[in-house]
C-alpha cells in the first residue's frame, strides 16, 4: 500500500496516459492529446472528410503520411509516373494542408509502422494514433499507440485529440533465453496461443521479462505488432538503453540539448514496483520450437514439432465449431503434422517482419539454397530505407540468386491490397507468410495462410512444403 502523501504506484501505460489527458469525459473515457498522427493511403479518405466539412487540419506539423496499402511493390513499377486515386489524394492533401508526406520510392516511404520509428517520428512517452489496427507496433518504443477507424481519424485531423477509454493493464512477462532458430515472431505466436484471440480484449499489454530486455528494437516491434491479435488495442515495452540507442540520430528525433532533455524524461517511463495489473502472466521462452498457425485465427498456433489439435477434444461448442470450420477451410486434418504440407506461396514482408534484421535472418537461411520450383516466393521490404540498407549489404543478391522475388516496399500481399488488390494469394493456394493475420480470405479470397517467422518462411520456400528451419 502507498503511504499517505506518496503517489500510488502506476504502470508505464498509466503514466503516459495521465500525461495526455485533456479532459475527463466520464465512464473512464477521456479526451487524449495525440502527439503524432500517422495516415496511410487507406486513411486518405479522412482528408476528403476534412474538405467536405470545410475544416482545417489542426496540426500539419504533427501529421505524417506514407502510402503503403494499395501501392504496387513490383520492382519494375515506373515510380516517376505511377499513381492511384489513394496516392493522388495524399499528394494533393499534403499540398493543401501542409503535412509531411513521404512520397513513394524515396527515403521515408514505406509501411507506416516501419517508417515512423525508423525516421524518429514515434518517440517514447508519446501518443501516436493511426487508422490501422497494427499501430500497437509503435508501443515497443514505450509509446501509447493505438489504431482508430476512419471517423476517429477525421476527429484527430480536425482536433489533434482522440476520445478513448482508459483500458485496464495486463503484463506479459516473457522469461528465459531464446533458443537458436527461435525468433521474436515465434515468441509472440506462442504468447497468442496461450492468451487467445480475445484474451486481452479491452486491455493494454505491457511486455516485459528477460527475453524482452534481451531483444533488439526490431524484435520488440514484431512482438508489440501482434498485441491486437489478442484483442489488446495497445502493446508496449518500457524504453531502455536499447530504445535510446535505436532512436539517437534518426532524422526526426530530437537533437542536442533537446535529446538529452528527452532521454532524461524517458528514463522515468517504467512501471512502478507495486503497480496493479488486471492480469499478469509469465511465459517461459526456453523450450520453444518454431511456431506457426494451422487455422484461420492467429491463436490457432502449434509448434512445428506438434500435430494439429482435434476439435473432438474441445469442450466449448462454439470453439469446437470454429476449429472444424478452420480445418475445413485450410484443408487439413486433426492429428496431422504440418511438416510436409505442400505450399504454393511464401511472403516475407509486412509491419510484423520486414525490417532489416528480419531480412538479414531470412537471407542467412536463403544463402546458397534454391526456392522449390513450384513455389512463388516474395521478399517485400518494409520501407524504402530498409530496402536500400539491405541492398547495400547484398541481401537482394542472395534472395534473387535463391529464386525469391526482391520487390519494392509496401504492405503488398499481407492484406491482399497491394497494387489495388492485384497483389494477393490466389484462391485455394497455401502461403507461409510472415504477416499477422490468417483470417479467412485475408491475403485474397480463398487463400490459406500459415503465419510464421521469416526463418520458417525461408525453410518452407526451399523445401516446397512446411518444414522445420532447424533441419535446414
Amino acid at each position, binding site marked *: 500500500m502507498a503511504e499517505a502523501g506518496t503517489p500510488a504506484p502506476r504502470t508505464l501505460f498509466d503514466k503516459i496516459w495521465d500525461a495526455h489527458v485533456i479532459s475527463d469525459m466520464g465512464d473512464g473515457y477521456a*479526451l487524449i*492529446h495525440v502527439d503524432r498522427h500517422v495516415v496511410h493511403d487507406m486513411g486518405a479518405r479522412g482528408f476528403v472528410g476534412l474538405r467536405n466539412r470545410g475544416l482545417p487540419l489542426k496540426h500539419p506539423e504533427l501529421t505524417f503520411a506514407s502510402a503503403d496499402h494499395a501501392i504496387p511493390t513490383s520492382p519494375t513499377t515506373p515510380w516517376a509516373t505511377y499513381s492511384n486515386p489513394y496516392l493522388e489524394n495524399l499528394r494533393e492533401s499534403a499540398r493543401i494542408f501542409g503535412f509531411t508526406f513521404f512520397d513513394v520510392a524515396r527515403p521515408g516511404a514505406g509501411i507506416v509502422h516501419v517508417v515512423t520509428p525508423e525516421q524518429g517520428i514515434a518517440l517514447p512517452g508519446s501518443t501516436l494514433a493511426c487508422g490501422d489496427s497494427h499501430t500497437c507496433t509503435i508501443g515497443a518504443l514505450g509509446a501509447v499507440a493505438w489504431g*482508430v477507424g476512419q*471517423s476517429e481519424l477525421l476527429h484527430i485531423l*480536425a*482536433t489533434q485529440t482522440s476520445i478513448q477509454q482508459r483500458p485496464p493493464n495486463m503484463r506479459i512477462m516473457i522469461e528465459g533465453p531464446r533458443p537458436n532458430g527461435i525468433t521474436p515472431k515465434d515468441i509472440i505466436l506462442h504468447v497468442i496461443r496461450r492468451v487467445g*484471440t*480475445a484474451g486481452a480484449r*479491452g486491455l493494454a499489454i505491457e511486455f516485459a521479462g528477460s527475453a524482452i530486455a534481451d531483444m533488439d528494437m526490431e524484435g520488440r516491434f514484431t512482438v508489440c505488432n501482434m498485441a491486437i491479435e489478442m484483442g489488446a488495442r495497445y502493446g508496449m515495452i518500457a524504453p531502455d538503453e536499447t530504445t535510446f540507442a535505436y532512436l539517437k540520430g534518426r532524422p526526426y528525433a530530437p537533437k542536442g540539448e533537446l535529446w538529452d532533455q*528527452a532521454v532524461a524524461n524517458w528514463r522515468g517511463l517504467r512501471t512502478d514496483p507495486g503497480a496493479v495489473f488486471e492480469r499478469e502472466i509469465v511465459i517461459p521462452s526456453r523450450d520453444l520450437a518454431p511456431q506457426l498457425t494451422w487455422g484461420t485465427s492467429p491463436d490457432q498456433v502449434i509448434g512445428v514439432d506438434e500435430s494439429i489439435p482435434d476439435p473432438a477434444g474441445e469442450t466449448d461448442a462454439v470453439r469446437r465449431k470454429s476449429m472444424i470450420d478452420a480445418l475445413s477451410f485450410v484443408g487439413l486434418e486433426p492429428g496431422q503434422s504440418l511438416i510436409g504440407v505442400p505450399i504454393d506461396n511464401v511472403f516475407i514482408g509486412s509491419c510484423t517482419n520486414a525490417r532489416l534484421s528480419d531480412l538479414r535472418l531470412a537471407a542467412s537461411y536463403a544463402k546458397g539454397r534454391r526456392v522449390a520450383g513450384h513455389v512463388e516466393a516474395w521478399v517485400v521490404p518494409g520501407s524504402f530505407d530498409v530496402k536500400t540498407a539491405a541492398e547495400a549489404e547484398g541481401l537482394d543478391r542472395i534472395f534473387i540468386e535463391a529464386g525469391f522475388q526482391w520487390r519494392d516496399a509496401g504492405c503488398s500481399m499481407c492484406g491482399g491490397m497491394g497494387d489495388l488488390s492485384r497483389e494477393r494469394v490466389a484462391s485455394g493456394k497455401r502461403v507461409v507468410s510472415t504477416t499477422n493475420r490468417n483470417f479467412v480470405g485475408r491475403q485474397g479470397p480463398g487463400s490459406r495462410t500459415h503465419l510464421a517467422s521469416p526463418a520458417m518462411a525461408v525453410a518452407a520456400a526451399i523445401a516446397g512444403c512446411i518444414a522445420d528451419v532447424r533441419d535446414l
Partner: protein
Amino acid sequence: MEPLIEIVGAAASLPLNNVNTDTIAPTRPRAQAGPAAIAEREIDATALFAPLRYDAQGAPRADFVLNRPGFERATILLAGSNFGCGSSREQAVWLLADFGIRCVIAPSFGGIFYDSCFKNGILPVMLPADQIDLLIAEVGAGAPQSIFSVEVASGTITTPGGRKLAFDLPEFRRSALLSGLDDIALTLRGSDAIAQFQARDRAARPWIYLPMTKTP
C-alpha cells in the same frame, strides 16, 4: 448525424465468436477507370459478410441468417463475443448500417469497431452471453412476427414476448446518440482546453512540438 432514439425491428442471430472485420467487410481497393478521386465513404453492399453469406460460386447461402426470409430487413444483430475484432476498417460498420442494422448486441466487441459504431449511428450493446441466449430464443420467424425494440435513453431492450433487459452505455455516448451531435463538433467546443493542454505540455516536453521539420 440523425439522432438515434429507438430501434424497432427484427433481430437476426449470428452466434459466432471472434467475427473479424475482414469477414464483415472483405472490401479491397480496386482499380477503376476514370478520374483519380476517392469518396469519404465507399459502400459495396454486396461485400457484407461475404465469406459467410455466399458460397464459393457466389450464390447466396440459404442457411445464412441475413439471406433467410424475415431477416433481410433486420435492424438488430445478435452476435457472439469479440464481434468486430481485427482490422480497423470502418467499412465493417458502414456495410452494417447500409444493410439497415442500427443495433448490434454482443457479449463483447473489438475496441475499434465498438467506437466506430457510435460514429455511424449504430448502437453497440454489451450484454452477458446468457442474456443474449434468451434474446436468441425469442427471435422466432423474424419480421413482422418477432419485433424487438431497443430504447437508447432508458437503456432497455424489449423482446417480442415482452421481456425487458437493461443495458449500460457511457453517458456521453448516450447523449451524443440522442442528440445526433457529432464528436468533432463536441470536441471543437472545447478548443480552449486543448490549447491550454498544449501550452503546458509544450513547456514540459518541447521535443514533441519543436523540431517537426527534419533536422539533418
